């Protein structure tokens, strides 16, 4: 299918912004068979997440979880990273765009730079370090952070004095002061916008004195303060006197939910959670009993398992005070006084050592300009306009959006949207998949298994990083004396392109069949040297690395002799191990080009449809008689989108698509296999007939249900109903039937029915907006109607806040109650009366009502059988558990199985659609590979020694070993992760891990001390 101009679509994509969203979109698309140009205006990728200390709700270290992604993006053959680059213009149409780009000079050639850091060491200039939020200084020649990708330095010419020192010391000749800006253009089929947001600048609020009081910091500054790689090395200190604070306050909604001092009426959606996290982590860092207080309006912990995080923080002693602070006054030399009215209306005053401003998100000016240049519509808050049913599409066809430009959101939501945007792109460009991608053409491998070891040792100087400390010639000459060594040399930079080529020649000429490189670390450089071997037709496992930089010259700078001795030990160890290395074969297995989608609601249908649009076939299994799911109970969304016509058209599209097989009244009866090759039996229809399907992936979209309340006279009085019931009543009224809500004088809604209590501690996320949506609708029907919403926290997160504001403007009354003083609903004959405690009047109030509407919880569907069949985990409340709450929100930890919709946690229709597209993208990027490489460094069982004792079965963290029909353990190489736990545990020594066999490790132990003892 070509577009209107008749041209074939381009198989390349431009991704603008390389934060966590842009990186995820790039990885999905590059693995799906598209060439990705990833543009960022910064010298490095990683975005704002790289600046965070920990992440909620798992308290994982942000850098620890993002850095593997950085490396993956940096290494991917089909991701072309364009740092220091901005988009100037976009011409053309979906499928065939021409992008004009401008790269700003970096003054350091990334191709030549080895990131050795000599240039930084000699730079005499100090400048404000933006990465650490100006809390410390950096040089003019710098790397934004140590793990930065691309791995290379940059010169900040705004502060550089041009002294020429860095140019002089750079032995790689990478410094070019005469570097200039470059303008160029690219042809792409689609564009994904992920430029992110800026954080709100609190200096606009003069009552907070942010600029004048050093101990008033923003939340991002506080993240850097807590970070182990931050300005204070992770020691909790306040900026003024570097003393550890004993009392810290957080002020919420700074630059959010505010139309007085700024224009940001929306909620920034993340600040409640990060404030709680910062308070909890700060308490962990503190030496004494740190007092933490969070001043807030509504505590919006609406995400998956966020409410429990909030509850735990309360248990940890974090104080939560419902009050908006007007001003921060200086107290004494550097303390801070907060004056506030508590909930009882009493004036209080407290002194803190430090105040953190929980600043919100804001679309930056540059992003607004970018939006204009790209000709996409932005809404009144300057976020990209999207349709609720097409949440990742901008107003310009072929231009997708993800992350915080789409609206304020947290990391998992950004990651889902990124994959969702990739799914949209992949469906649009599927005809051009693999047309522009690069692939490695490798020569056939030489079999060296019969040859005695012939080892070549290459010792790296790394400029002067190693050579300046370790006596490299001495190490080189020492290596010459070791067994099996036939060649030694030292290089200025072993990793440079020209050295690689020369090494390849030497290896061929001298018949070398094992390579040892003594240089930096295998974590960054092993893949590169393995490629060198592959390029000349040697097996990549015939390589070993001695880490004489990161773990030697850099950490023993004051003792050159001992550092040299250690380098010799490490080289001896590597040579001994290299002599025992064996070439390992990897097999390719085919991936079945189809997916099984379980659940035929909005999420399942979107996932199946997108898979089919990507060119894969899909089998959609629905338990009920009809497709549509829970969405059949929703008339319209809060932003007025009609749901039923949408569901009807979606069903029609799914049924009409030749790539989708729809099975209703069907259930999975058995499931086996592994990623790429699953076999599932499905009982179809009311008969007992079973159909068998072979498929490569599974997407779970089994949905959720509304809680049927046992409280508040539900089911006993006709006037008591749930929000979903009310939806039905309103729809029937449209059809002229039944109870007419327009005649009601008063409706009272009760929030959190079946949520946030002992039985179910989760927040159901969607009920606050359901209540406001229906309240506004009732007001429209009968403007004279009294509507009271009894709530605990109004969680109108993100842009939903505007509807909350509108509801209050229309006179809808919001009254807050506590869990220990619940409202009472009593029957009053035909009518009802509700008694509740009003937080403003501080007394109980009784009101008659025509209807009481309960915002009932969203509960997980019953998936006991399916979870057992698929062997995928669920939490205590029946929702499925994703592989990682932050960065793998739609993957299960078992590969090839994905998750979306309300089966994951309660969410809005637009969020379900996003997540279903994300699941389809993840599934599609796996299927697109067509084959899977298995084997290599994996565990294998010697059948003759296995006693089927089950130790391996029980010890494997991935559940891979199985006792097979021959009654011995079998380890599927496609599933084995190569950790080797089973190998150490096996009492019969029946299992070995290739590449890490017992003798290959013990030889290292022995070799280490040979020289020293």
């Amino acid at each position, binding site marked *: 299918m070509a577009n209107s101009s008749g041209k074939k679509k381009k198989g390349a994509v431009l991704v603008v912004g390389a934060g966590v969203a842009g990186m995820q979109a790039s990885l999905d698309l590059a693995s799906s068979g598209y060439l990705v140009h990833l543009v960022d205006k910064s010298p490095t990728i990683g975005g704002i997440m790289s600046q965070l200390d920990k992440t909620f709700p798992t308290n994982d270290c942000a850098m620890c979880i993002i850095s593997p992604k950085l490396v993956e993006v940096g290494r991917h053959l089909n991701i072309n990273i364009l740092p220091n680059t901005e988009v100037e213009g976009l011409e053309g149409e979906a499928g065939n765009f021409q992008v004009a780009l401008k790269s700003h000079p970096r003054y350091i050639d990334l191709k030549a730079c080895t990131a050795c850091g000599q240039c930084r060491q000699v730079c005499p200039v100090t400048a404000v370090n933006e990465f650490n939020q100006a809390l410390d200084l950096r040089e003019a020649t710098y790397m934004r952070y*140590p793990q930065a990708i691309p791995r290379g330095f940059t010169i900040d010419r705004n502060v550089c004095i041009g002294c020429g020192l860095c140019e002089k010391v750079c032995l790689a000749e990478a410094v070019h002061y005469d570097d200039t800006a470059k303008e160029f253009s690219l042809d792409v089929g689609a564009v994904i916008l992920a430029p992110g947001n800026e954080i709100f600048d609190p200096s606009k609020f003069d009552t907070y004195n942010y600029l004048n009081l050093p101990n008033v910091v923003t939340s991002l500054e506080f993240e850097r303060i807590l970070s182990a*790689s931050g300005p204070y090395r992770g020691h909790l200190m306040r900026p003024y006197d570097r003393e550890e604070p004993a009392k810290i306050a957080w002020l919420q909604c700074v630059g959010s939910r505010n139309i007085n001092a700024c224009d940001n009426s929306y909620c920034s959606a993340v600040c409640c959670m990060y404030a709680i996290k910062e308070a909890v982590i700060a308490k962990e860092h503190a030496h004494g009993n740190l007092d933490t207080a969070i001043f807030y309006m509504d505590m919006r912990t609406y995400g998956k398992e966020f409410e429990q995080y909030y509850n735990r923080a309360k248990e940890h002693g974090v104080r939560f005070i419902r009050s908006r602070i007007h001003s921060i006054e200086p107290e004494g030399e550097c303390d801070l006084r907060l004056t506030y009215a508590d909930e009882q209306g009493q004036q209080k005053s407290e002194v803190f050592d430090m105040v953190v401003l929980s600043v919100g998100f804001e679309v930056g000016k540059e992003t607004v300009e970018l939006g204009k240049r790209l000709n996409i519509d932005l809404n009144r808050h300057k976020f990209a306009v999207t349709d609720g049913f097409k949440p990742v599409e901008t107003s310009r066809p072929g231009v997708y959006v993800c992350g915080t430009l789409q609206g304020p959101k947290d990391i998992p939501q950004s990651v889902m949207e990124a994959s969702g945007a990739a799914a949209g792109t992949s469906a649009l460009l599927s005809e051009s998949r693999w047309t522009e991608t690069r692939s490695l053409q490798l020569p056939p491998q030489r079999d060296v298994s019969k040859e005695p070891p012939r080892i070549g040792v290459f010792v790296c100087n790394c400029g002067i990083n190693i050579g300046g400390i370790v006596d490299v010639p001495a190490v080189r000459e020492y290596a010459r004396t070791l067994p099996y060594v036939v060649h030694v040399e030292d290089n200025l930079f072993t990793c440079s392109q020209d050295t690689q080529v020369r090494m390849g020649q030497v290896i061929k000429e001298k018949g070398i069949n094992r390579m040892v490189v003594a240089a930096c*670390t*295998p*974590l*960054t450089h092993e893949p590169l040297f393995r490629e060198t071997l592959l390029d000349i037709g040697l097996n990549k496992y015939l390589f070993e690395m001695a*880490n004489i*930089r*990161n*773990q*030697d010259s*850099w*950490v*023993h*700078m*004051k*003792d050159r002799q*001992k*550092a040299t*001795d*250690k380098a010799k*030990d*490490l080289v001896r*160890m590597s040579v001994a191990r290299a002599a025992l290395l064996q070439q390992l074969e990897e097999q390719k297995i085919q991936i079945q080009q189809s997916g099984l989608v379980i659940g035929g609601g909005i999420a399942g249908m979107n996932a199946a449809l997108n898979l089919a649009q990507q060119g894969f076939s899909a089998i959609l299994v629905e338990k009920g008689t009809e497709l549509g799911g829970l969405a059949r109970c929703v008339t319209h969304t809060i932003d007025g989108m009609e749901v039923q016509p949408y569901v009807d058209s979606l069903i029609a599209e799914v049924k009409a698509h030749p790539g989708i097989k729809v099975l209703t009244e069907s259930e999975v009866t058995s499931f086996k296999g592994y990623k790429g090759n699953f076999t599932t039996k499905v009982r179809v229809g009311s008969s007992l007939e079973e159909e068998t399907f072979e498929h490569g992936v599974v997407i779970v979209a089994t949905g959720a249900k509304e809680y049927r309340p046992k409280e508040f006279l539900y089911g006993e009085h006709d006037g008591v109903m749930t929000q979903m019931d009310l939806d039905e009543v309103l729809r029937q009224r449209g059809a002229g039937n039944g109870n007419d809500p327009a005649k009601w004088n008063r409706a009272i809604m009760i929030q959190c029915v079946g949520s946030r209590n002992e039985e179910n501690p989760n927040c159901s996320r969607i009920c606050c907006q359901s209540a406001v949506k229906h309240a506004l609708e009732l007001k429209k029907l009968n403007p004279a109607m009294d509507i009271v919403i009894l709530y605990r926290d109004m969680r109108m997160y993100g842009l939903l806040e505007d509807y909350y504001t509108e509801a209050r403007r229309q006179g809808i009354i919001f009254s807050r109650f506590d869990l220990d003083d619940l409202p009472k609903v009593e029957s009053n004959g035909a009518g009802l009366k509700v008694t509740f405690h009003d937080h403003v009047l501080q007394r109980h109030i009784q009101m008659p009502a025509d209807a009481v509407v309960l915002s009932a919880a969203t509960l997980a569907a019953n998936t006991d059988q399916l979870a057992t069949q698929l062997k995928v985990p669920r939490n205590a409340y029946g929702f499925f558990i994703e592989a990682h709450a932050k960065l793998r929100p739609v993957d299960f930890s078992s590969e090839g199985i994905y998750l979306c919709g309300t089966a994951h946690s309660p969410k809005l229709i637009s969020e379900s659609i996003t997540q279903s597209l994300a699941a389809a993208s993840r599934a599609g990027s796996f299927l697109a590979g067509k084959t899977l490489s298995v084997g290599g*460094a994996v565990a294998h069982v010697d059948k003759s020694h296995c006693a089927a004792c089950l130790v391996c079965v029980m*010890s494997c*963290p991935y559940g891979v070993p199985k006792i097979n029909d021959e009654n011995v353990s079998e380890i599927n190489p496609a599933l084995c992760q*190569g*950790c*080797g*736990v089973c*190998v*150490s*545990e096996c009492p019969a020594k029946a299992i070995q*891990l290739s590449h*890490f066999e*017992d003798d290959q*490790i*013990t030889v*290292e*132990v*022995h070799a*280490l*001390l040979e020289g*020293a*003892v």
Partner: protein
Amino acid sequence: MNEVFEPKMLAFLCNWCAYAGADLAGVSRFQYPPTIRVIRTMCSGRVDPLYVIEGLKDGFDQVSVFG
């Protein structure tokens, strides 16, 4: 016994966490005594108790596993 005792130490490091941490110590130029020797494994669970015995038998004064 005028010489200061310098223990010979052997450490097994998990590739994904402890080894990466040791690399980062280098990036941060943290200085520590040059008496420790590191063997990388794909998981600290790969360290067979026998390796610990072998290390001690060979003459290491201490063997540790980080993961």
